[in-house]
């Protein structure tokens, strides 16, 4: 996914299981998943690109999402996403009138799917600062064997970025939502605060152009549930240069209400960019969910126009560095 608010298609939570959009809560890119759920690289992405993400659980549950984004420089971005959830085989059973087991009925079908529209508009932009709004509208549909549910929600927030040096920038974000309503249930409120720092270095651990990103994020959920994540990404290569860039990501997520309260994350990514600016990126992440098993994330993206995976400011600084 990874357009703007990737990872927040899940409609929040009142308490565990209270939100019928829970099936969408895991939708996020492999980049974000590997970084402890923190979108270190994504908040200020530019250019035109399309992406596809799949997530597979040990139980056979699968998510599949597509996203696309286009924009005009740093002034605005618009994107759209579509995602679907399939739980895999579920054995149906019936019960007798006395409440005893009445036999199996074969597999039952239960799918969810949704779509969202996202936008980012720059409010303030100077050489050192940039502030933008984020907005997102989400629609979810749940198709169960004997009933269908649907709901819509909106989310919004602000992002601010401060150039902290040559090729480095500090980004902070805050989102509220999704807020909305669904069939028989209310979309629960959720407030997210996060911050990240990314820097392109001319000489890193291996002596060449490398980069480092760090980020942390906290979600305050309804009923005072809190979950936090922290992550880091290190890349080998210069972002924006033709050729390959290797990303190594590590993260940790603290989610007390889930199957595993402390969830270590890890992932790798490879970006191959042509001189024309066309780029292909593949990212993979691995997460654990305690007794529910491992979770695999894979994202493949195609960048159709010159763009940078980090902020325009970083890009501009990098170009300056190259020029120098």
């Amino acid at each position: 996914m990874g357009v703007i608010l990737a990872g927040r298609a899940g409609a929040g939570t009142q308490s565990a299981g209270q939100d019928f959009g829970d099936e969408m809560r895991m939708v996020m890119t492999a980049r974000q998943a590997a970084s402890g759920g923190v979108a270190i690289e994504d908040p200020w992405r530019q250019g035109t690109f399309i992406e596809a993400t799949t997530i597979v659980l040990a139980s056979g549950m699968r998510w599949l999402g597509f996203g696309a984004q286009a924009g005009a420089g740093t002034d605005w971005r618009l994107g759209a996403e579509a995602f679907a959830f399939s739980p895999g085989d579920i054995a149906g059973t019936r019960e007798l009138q006395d409440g005893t087991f009445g036999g199996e009925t074969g597999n039952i079908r239960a799918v969810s799917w949704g779509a969202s529209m996202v936008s980012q508009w720059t409010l303030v932009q100077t050489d050192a600062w940039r502030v933008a709004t984020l907005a997102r509208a989400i629609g979810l549909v749940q198709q169960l064997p004997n009933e269908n549910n649907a709901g819509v929600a909106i989310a919004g927030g602000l992002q601010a970025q401060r150039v902290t040096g040559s090729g480095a920038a500090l980004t902070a974000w805050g989102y509220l939502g999704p807020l909305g309503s669904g069939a028989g249930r209310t979309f629960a409120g959720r407030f997210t605060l996060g911050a990240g720092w990314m820097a392109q270095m001319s000489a890193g651990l291996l002596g060449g152009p490398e980069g480092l990103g760090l980020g942390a994020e906290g979600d305050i959920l309804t009923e005072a549930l809190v979950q936090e994540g922290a992550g880091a990404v290190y890349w080998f290569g210069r972002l924006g240069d033709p050729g390959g860039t290797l990303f190594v990501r590590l993260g940790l997520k603290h989610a007390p209400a889930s199957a595993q309260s402390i969830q270590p994350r890890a992932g790798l990514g490879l970006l191959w960019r042509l001189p024309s600016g066309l780029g292909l990126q593949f990212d993979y992440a691995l997460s654990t969910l305690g007794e529910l098993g491992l979770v695999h994330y894979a994202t493949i993206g195609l960048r159709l126009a010159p763009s940078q995976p980090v902020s325009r400011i970083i890009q501009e600084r990098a170009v300056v560095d190259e020029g120098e």
Partner: protein
Amino acid sequence: MPALIFVVCSLFWSFPARAAICWTDGTPLNIDRVDMAVVALGNTIYAIGGWTTDGTTTTVYGTVEAYDPYTQTWTLKADMPTPRYMLAAVAVNNMVLAIGGSTLFPDANGITTVEAYDPSTDTWSAKAPLPAPRTGLTAAVVGGTVYATGGCNAKGSFLRSTDAYDPGVNSWTPKASMKNRRVSLCSAVHKGKIYAIGGNHIDGFLTTTAFEEYNPATDTWLEKQRMPTSRGSAAAAVSGGNIFVAGGMRNVGMGSIPLSIVEVYDPVTNAWSTDTSLPVWRYGHGMVNLELKSTLFAVGGAHFGDSSLIYGDTGAALQATLAMTNPTPATGYTFTATLTISNTGLGTLANVTPMLGPNSGTAYATTVSGPDPPGPFGLIGGASQVVLWTFSATGAGAVRFTCTVTGLNACGATLVTPLRNDMVFPTARLDASLALTSRTLSPGQEVTASLTVTNTGFFPAYGVTGGIQVTPSQVVRLVPVSSTAFVAVLEPGGATTFTWTLTAVGPGTAAVNACATAYDGGGTGDISGCSASSIAVPAPPASGIIRVHPNPVNFPTAVRGTLKFEGMVAGATVRIYTASGLKVWEYSAVGEGMVEWNGRNLSGHPVAPGVYQWIVAAGKTKTRGKLVVE
């Protein structure tokens, strides 16, 4: 309501003497009409078309009404597509055929239209038209062929001609003509011959006494003994081998007078006689005989003058029902007979007398009181009277109560309504009902079986004992401890309960039969009452197999409102997660068997619909699956 049915009641035909007719009033038509067609099909009378006037406006009807002699009611049916009057109607092939007539008033134009009514579908359909227009005709059916005779054509000429209609091929063919031209005649059929009766001739002003017999077998008309009274617009019907002609109009000079006189033709002697006149004159009416009731029905028509068709008097009708309460032994064997007498007509019934008997089996019941009121009493139209008797059952056996209600109508005729009611008074009788505290058991579980026995007879039951049989014993067996083993006397209305304890042994279904036996205090010997049920012992799931049901689960409709985890071992823990891994519920089983989840999360809120993952952890063994909440 002007148009009436006159019912000839109490007719007991005995040749050569014939009892005099007693005309009584019947149920009026819903719509006043004259010059309509009246025909009987089966046990239903149909009144079709006709006209009426309020003195200013004249209406020609396509209205159809059907009379049910059982309920004595007229019901509106589908209108005839072509409203008309002075038509003829016959019943053939389970249909009513409406033939010819006039659509314009007062210029009685003749039309050729023939339409058929199907009572089974309440619909009309067009049939082959008459070869030439006819109005004021008459029609009759012999051997499945319809014969239309006489009337007036479109030029105003009176007709002698006859046309025959074959319903099988839907076509008309000409037949021999009558000797006398006439319109507004009537007809009757007797022993395969058609009799054309009276009518008007010479410009419609002069009525005729002409009486001709048509033999369809030879296609010939033969003049018979003329009717004593010349008349047109009369009605005729056959009853008891005689042809009755009632009412009509007779010309006197240049005027006409309506008639009430009834004349009867005897085909055997070729002679006419008179009978009781209609209560009032009428013309343009119809008359049919329903063998069902051995009665003639004179329907509708006009009771002069020209603009006034109002004639309102309806007859008395006697109806009664007899209901008996079931004697209950506990109340001292008494029971009540309730006779409800109703006068469903508008006329008055006099001398209404309820009479009980003769009854059979009176050794088993005696009259305590009644009838109350004893009668005789009067009953105005629409009124009802309840008459009560009280009885006491004195023994066991069958009793037949008969009841007769009589009353006199305004005609002086006696109306009789016989009624009957059969009852059986049992001796001692054991009604048994088996109840189980549970019908599904796990091995080792116990259940209580209760057999409640009630003596619903009229004599005591002696030495009442209860017994139970459970098969197969590999599934459920009887714990060798019983409760009440013997009841010395069970009085009528009394009850007792036997109980047993059963225990489940192994999987399967066991039949449970419990019976009570006793000696009948009425002396018929041993009696018994039994009741049966069954107990299911489901096989436990194989070791390590967890059965989760129902899936999908809709908690409001699930049994006990829960999702069940069967096959739990002691200490095993159920954990339920959302698709994204948030923990929803957790519970550790205390013992073996079933754990039930009520669909609420750890905070006590109902979970949202969607897909969930469940894990049952027993030691190091984990069983997992997915479920859907709706």
